[in-house]
């Protein structure tokens, strides 16, 4: 195993992974969905007759053909949607009378394979009267076109913090304002969504690449009207999720319903084109900010207003922007912070958590605005941040927007980032270039982020167990589900360390609701922080149980039994130690079940970027990127490093490349797939240096915070700030992500900030 960095790598990197699409079940039918070509419209009729005549087609159904088809289950998890938002706004699994996003499923065709199913789908006809499409929050807010007749498009209004007294702005030495667009992003996992439902008698086994198998089981049981113990959800190898695989999607509802109705296995393997149109989107906020400071650069007040385009139906995207509002304060001691949210329905597939999930939007807004303020005040942006950081002694720190930060040392992270970058040398290079009219402009940007990991109250616990076997090995079970993060490596090593046995003697079982009856799953950077803490706790309990048994066996008080390196032995009499396996042999099965609750954690860091801009073409060349992240106690440096690099690349994607435009009909211009929606490729990745500071979380004995989302959160603002610094532009609104060449070219021609200050 030594040649592989992670235990799962031999399997995943040599083509031996087994994904949902690799699972062959005799008699399985493949689903193809007939999808709406319009973004918004009234559905008049769907005719599946011709599809049913196509050879190999087992059946074709529209909503009218399936009166018992349940709707997509809504969720009020973590307060991310509300009863008010979902009331009267049902999401049908197949369109009944109104299309609300392009690609929404109008009908389903099942056939012996996907080719025949697609041939059948091509024969389905639908009559849709197009309606004006509402794509932007601004267009949706005025309710001139409503997605649900008689109901407002605005499904949630929320706030964090207290309204700021107007005198604060009036009396401040400097006030800056800006508007930012957090564009819609596609999570783009390598493996798109997949579900396979296999009915057997009264039971249903569902295979799916999924982050929350227990939630999927619970929601499927509810929509089928079954008890949860009749459903088993198994998560096989899964090619990424980034937040996009935790729901019971419309297609999943249809597949489960038809599998049970027909008594046959049914699968749906989403292809890339479907994924680009109908998988969840991330971000999607129009923001305005106002930030005030006194003449010394001490922050006085910060206001953030968010209009979030959440897609065609109220789902988790309803409350997701509140995550941004709660995290609006950032890393600073600003006394007055007020954030307001309006979540509005728009004619696109729903927005949903995507790696970062509300925190990148918050970090990007405050960090871009800090640079704007620094330029206004004529203070170095580093110095401005240092003057306002929450100091280490102030933790736990209650923010004006309702968060209680657990621990942090923000200045230490920034110092390490600047030292690693060579900040002073780059400033000198920048000065040299500014004196040379022929040199390409160079800019330096930093972003000091704070985020939240682990989840929200009510979702901060995890379930699991440890079982010792007669051969001395241990099986760990937990309710998380890896979609590629390396749980098979990290969790056994963690358990082995506590028990004092070799890593190879511990095996992980997860992502199977029959093996592990309760669980929450993997989201919000919580697996290491919460499930890791649970397993550490379970391991200490296993040791206690082993000592108690040994005490019984040997007739000794338990405090005379010691544990060392996976063995028990009497403290005093010098008898030979007894291994865990022998203890099981002589005392019977040894298993501890656990449920453990962690505290919310607040990882942080400082990212710094150097960019060179070609003002004539508008191209941005990232010369250096430094990411200093603090996720508390690091369990596996290689795994954390991989998370840091991967998420930084996705942050680069948001800053420079990823985005979609829409036609006048509201349909996104994605016909050519990844030729239209550009992901950064290996060619675009700059040198990324990852370093860390380690400030343990006091929320668990383990002390780990989430490490999975740092780059998405910290990197975008560092890059945009670096470009703004290179161009010295006065108007921050000109630099909207992604910083495409045309945008940067236009920004480069705009007035410089020396000429443009108020």
């Amino acid at each position, binding site marked *: 195993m030594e040649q592989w960095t992670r235990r799962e790598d031999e399997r995943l990197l040599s083509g031996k992974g087994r994904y949902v699409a690799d699972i062959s079940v005799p008699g399985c039918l493949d689903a193809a969905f007939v999808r709406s070509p319009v973004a918004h419209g009234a559905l008049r009729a769907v005719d599946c007759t011709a599809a049913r005549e196509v050879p190999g087609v087992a059946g074709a159904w529209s909503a009218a053909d399936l009166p018992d088809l349940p709707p997509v289950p809504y969720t009020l998890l973590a307060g991310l949607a509300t009863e008010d938002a979902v009331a009267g706004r049902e999401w049908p699994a197949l369109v009944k009378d109104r299309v609300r996003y392009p690609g929404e499923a109008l009908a389903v065709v099942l056939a012996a394979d996907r080719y025949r199913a697609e*041939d059948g789908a091509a024969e389905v006809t639908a009559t849709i009267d197009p309606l004006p499409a509402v794509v932007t929050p601004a267009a949706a807010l005025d309710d001139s076109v409503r997605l649900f007749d008689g109901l407002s498009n605005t499904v949630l209004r929320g706030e964090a913090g207290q309204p700021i007294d107007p005198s604060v702005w009036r009396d401040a030495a400097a006030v800056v304002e800006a508007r930012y667009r957090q564009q819609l992003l596609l999570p783009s996992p390598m493996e798109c969504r997949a579900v396979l439902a296999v009915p057997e008698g009264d039971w249903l086994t569902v295979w799916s690449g999924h982050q929350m198998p227990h939630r999927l089981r619970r929601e499927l049981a509810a929509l089928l009207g079954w008890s949860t113990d009749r459903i088993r959800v198994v998560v096989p190898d899964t090619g990424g999720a980034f937040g996009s695989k935790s729901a019971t999607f419309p297609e999943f509802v249809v597949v489960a319903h038809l599998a049970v109705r027909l008594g046959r296995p049914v699968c749906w393997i989403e292809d890339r084109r479907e994924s680009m149109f109908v998988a969840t989107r991330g971000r999607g906020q129009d923001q305005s900010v106002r930030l005030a400071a006194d003449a010394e650069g001490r922050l006085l007040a910060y206001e953030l207003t968010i209009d979030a385009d959440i897609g065609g139906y109220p789902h988790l995207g309803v409350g997701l922007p509140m995550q941004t509002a709660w995290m609006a304060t950032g890393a600073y001691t600003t006394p007055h912070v007020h954030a307001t949210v309006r979540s509005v329905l728009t004619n696109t597939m729903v927005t949903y958590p995507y790696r970062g999930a509300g925190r990148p939007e918050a970090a990007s807004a405050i960090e871009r605005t800090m640079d704007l303020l620094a330029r206004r005040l004529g203070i170095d942006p580093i110095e401005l941040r240092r003057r306002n950081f929450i100091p280490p002694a102030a933790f736990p720190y209650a923010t004006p927007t309702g968060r209680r930060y657990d621990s942090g040392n923000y200045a230490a992270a920034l110092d390490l980032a600047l030292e690693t970058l060579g900040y002073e040398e780059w400033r000198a290079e920048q000065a040299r270039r500014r004196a040379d009219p022929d040199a390409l402009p160079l800019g330096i940007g930093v972003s000091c982020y704070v985020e939240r990991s682990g989840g929200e109250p009510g979702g901060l616990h995890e379930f699991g167990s440890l079982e010792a076997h007669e051969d001395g090995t241990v099986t760990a079970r937990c309710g998380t589900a890896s979609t590629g993060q390396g749980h098979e490596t990290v969790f056994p090593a963690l358990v082995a360390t506590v028990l004092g046995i070799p890593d190879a003697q511990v095996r992980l079982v997860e992502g199977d609701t029959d093996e592990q009856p309760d669980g929450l799953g993997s989201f919000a950077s919580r697996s290491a922080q919460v499930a890791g803490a649970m397993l550490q706790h379970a391991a200490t309990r296993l040791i206690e149980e082993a000592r108690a048994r040994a005490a019984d066996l040997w007739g000794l008080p338990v405090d005379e039994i010691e544990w060392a390196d996976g063995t028990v032995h009497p403290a005093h009499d010098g008898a030979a130690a007894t291994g865990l396996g022998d203890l099981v042999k002589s005392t019977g099965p040894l298993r501890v079940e656990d449920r453990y609750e962690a505290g919310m954690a607040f990882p942080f860091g400082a990212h710094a970027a150097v960019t060179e801009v070609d003002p004539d073409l508008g191209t941005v060349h990232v010369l250096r990127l430094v990411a200093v992240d603090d996720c508390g106690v690091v369990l596996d440096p290689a795994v954390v490093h991989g998370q840091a690099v991967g998420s930084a690349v996705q942050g680069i994607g948001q800053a420079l490349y990823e985005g979609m435009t829409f036609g006048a009909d509201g349909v996104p211009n994605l016909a050519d797939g990844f030729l239209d929606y550009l992901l950064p490729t290996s060619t675009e990745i700059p040198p990324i240096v990852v370093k860390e500071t380690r400030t343990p979380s006091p929320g668990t004995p383990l002390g780990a915070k989430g490490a999975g989302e740092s780059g998405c959160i910290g990197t975008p603002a560092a890059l945009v700030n670096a470009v703004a610094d290179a161009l010295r532009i006065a108007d921050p609104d000109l630099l909207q992500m992604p910083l495409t060449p045309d945008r940067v070219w236009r920004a480069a021609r705009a007035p410089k900030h020396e000429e443009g200050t108020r």
Partner: protein
Amino acid sequence: MKPATFDYVAPRTVAEAVEALGDPGREAQVLAGGQSLILEMHLQRSRPELVVDINRIPELDRMSVEDGELRVGALIRHAAFEAADAVPGPLGTLLSRAVVNIAHPPIRSRGTMAGSFGWAHPASEWCAVGVALDATVEVTGPEGPRALAARDYFLGPYRTARGPRELITAVRMPLLGEHTGVGFIEHRRTHFCFAQVAVAAALTVHDGVIGDARIGLVNSADRPVRARAAERTLLGAEFGPLPAGRRLPDTHPFARAGRVAAQEDAVPVAEPYADVAYKRQAVAVLVGRTLREAATDLRARLAAPEGDHR
């Protein structure tokens, strides 16, 4: 891949291929490298009833130099041009500088130059090189072979003068003679995607004066463009020393040619993240830079020892 149903034939000779294409009852497509066809069929935007796979026709897999022209058979892959000395003289340099912008190495090992001419995407590098150099497209159909000049060949996006029953057998390009320098610069958002704009240029200098200039514009109209107005501004101009700095002064002939190309030759089509104004800007900048690259290439050639034909 989930294409619509199609029939497939793999002829062994050009005559057999033409015969297959000649079936009036079926819409046919020619498969060479499949660089574009496979994607289009996968998305069912192209639904040919018959795919004529020409990969087993040996006579199409030949590249030769005849009468001062390079003749590229229809099966010659992009990768064949990656080495600058694969083709003699400045043409080899130009093709090698252009080819690295075409997709990725695995695709370049399958896709063909003739296929690019057949598909006629406005962002095709080869097609712009072709119009700049007055390439010739050889086709064979039921009526026999004919040769089409590149300037008459491209009719619009994906539209050419080739008849549906005709097979492209080869593309011919004139070898560029002595005293010619070449350049190719492409601008795109990531290495993966199509060019927003790219420019091919060849400058020929005699007695210190620019005697011939050829400029091809990629993705600057609905078809490849030869920037004749820009070329004219250069003819007869003195081939002077290049400016020392990175940027061309606005008064430099190359910068002037760039502005003319942008305003008079280009007819940009707006795309997401590249409207007409931005594309004109990119054309102006890239033409200037590519001419400069060609001039630098020419100086290197003139300075090279006798017999060094890079």
